[in-house]
């Protein structure tokens, strides 16, 4: 008897330590078992929370977790290597994706052009009937090239072409150039898609280069000295090409003047002002003419004054000194008397 009661007592003690697995809630919870998620829509008890915040939250969390685990036990379970595993259903909650949505594939240059112009791709048949050869010729492959050879056994020499020129060789060269160009464009499209920088091709052909290209070439060539073009002479009104910073040695994208203190800047400014003010004035015809007019006007005014003044002025004039030579102002007329004649 003793043993039995002891065991019972022990189990009772143990069970009192743990809470029951059943939890009462006013409103049923909403589960998303697959993502182990529970929504509790029951009212939040502010009174309990104020009394013992930590304890209340802990209780709430335990109860809800208990309910979630109860739900898990209702799922079909199986045993894998001594562990009980529940099979989760598909998740109901939509979670945002971790990584950004992949960008749509970038169009190639031709695709872009075709889209702009509304050009649609036409399906070509693999075989086409050749009237000249009287047989079906495939679109590509060795049979096609054979057919071409058969068809073009003779080529016309254009009217204004060099008669000694080999038209067949010319045709093969142009074809191979076309292929090379196509390959270059393909590679360029790949580079563009993968965001790889390709080195710029310099001036391709001086015969077809535009003035802009030439200007760029000059700008780059000038900077390509050991001192980065610091001592290169400039032509009057020469302009530097824009948009060539990437290929110009020593050029940075945005050139900023180095910061200097206010006093230094002031001195620099004063130097500039000095250089402007000390410029020798150009000979200005308009200006000299206007000056001439001014002096003439002044002269006539003084003469009029003299006439008006009459005798009084004359007397004063007599009293004053004789006018000295080479000090009087010339009244208009010729500038420069020329050679003195004897």
């Amino acid at each position, binding site marked *: 008897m003793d043993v039995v009661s002891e065991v019972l007592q022990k189990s009772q003690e143990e069970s009192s330590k743990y809470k029951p697995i059943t939890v009462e809630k006013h409103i049923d919870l909403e589960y998303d078992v697959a993502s182990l998620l529970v929504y509790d829509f029951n009212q939040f008890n502010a009174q309990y929370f104020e009394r013992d915040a930590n304890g209340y939250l802990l209780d709430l969390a335990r109860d809800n977790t208990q309910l979630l685990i109860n739900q898990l036990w209702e799922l079909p379970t199986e045993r894998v290597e001594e562990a009980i595993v529940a099979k989760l259903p598909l998740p109901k909650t939509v979670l945002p994706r971790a990584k950004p949505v992949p960008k749509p594939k970038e169009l190639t240059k031709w695709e872009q052009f075709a889209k702009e112009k509304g050009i649609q791709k036409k399906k070509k048949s693999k075989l086409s009937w050749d009237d000249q050869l009287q047989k079906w010729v495939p679109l590509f492959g060795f049979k096609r090239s054979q057919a071409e050879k058969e068809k073009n056994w003779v080529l016309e020499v254009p009217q204004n072409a060099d008669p000694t020129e080999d038209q067949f060789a010319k045709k093969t060269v142009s074809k191979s150039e076309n292929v090379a160009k196509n390959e270059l464009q393909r590679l360029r499209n790949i580079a563009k898609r993968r965001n790889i920088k390709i080195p710029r091709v310099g001036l391709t052909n001086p015969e077809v280069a535009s003035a802009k290209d030439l200007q760029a070439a000059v700008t780059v060539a000038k900077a390509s000295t050991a001192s980065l073009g610091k001592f290169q002479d400039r032509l009057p009104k020469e302009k530097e090409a824009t948009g060539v910073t990437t290929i110009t040695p020593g050029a940075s994208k945005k050139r*900023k*003047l180095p910061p*200097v203190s*206010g*006093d230094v*800047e*002031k001195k*620099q*400014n*004063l130097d*500039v*002002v000095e*250089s*402007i*003010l000390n410029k020798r004035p150009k000979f200005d015809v*308009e*200006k000299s003419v*206007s*000056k001439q*007019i*001014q002096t003439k*006007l002044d002269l006539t005014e003084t003469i009029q004054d003299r006439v008006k003044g009459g005798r009084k002025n004359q007397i004063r004039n007599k009293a004053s000194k004789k006018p000295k030579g080479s000090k009087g102002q010339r009244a208009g007329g010729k500038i420069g008397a020329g050679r003195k004649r004897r």
Partner: protein
Amino acid sequence: MRRLSEDRTKVLFEKLAKYIGPNIKQLIERPDGIYCFREQKNRVYYVSENILKFANTMPADNIISLGTCFGKFTKTGKFKLHITALNYIAPYAQCKIWLKSSAEQQFLYGNNVTKAGLGRISENCEKYQGALVYSMSDLPLGFGVAARSTAECKMVDPLTVVCFHQSDIGEYIRSEDDLL
């Protein structure tokens, strides 16, 4: 916001020299501290160094204006004086033109000054020199370019243009958005 390059400084001072001649030095050498010219979005600002220090704490793109705007560089690299510079230039002006009260409004609407509207003109004004336009009560109204020298002015008939309009204080209302 950055310092003016040497070329641009030259262009700016050449323009100012047309109006105030050797008095540019007064703008640079001031007894009340260091003033300098700064460029922001092709506009030139005349700023005291104290304000400049504050402005340096801000990213340049966010600055709309600082100090006084003197004018702007056009796309072809010329400098255009704005009316906002009037207060700094008026005291040092060399060629002055006074308008009759009847011609004031005409000028303030952006028209050239004719001989009829000319009240007074300072002596020895040269042709195509920068001129300051005043009302008869000595209130600066704007800038212009003398179309005739002082001597020529006396001879011409009353309808000829004496001063080409460049900017006037009417612009504060007319082109409020462009002035900064």
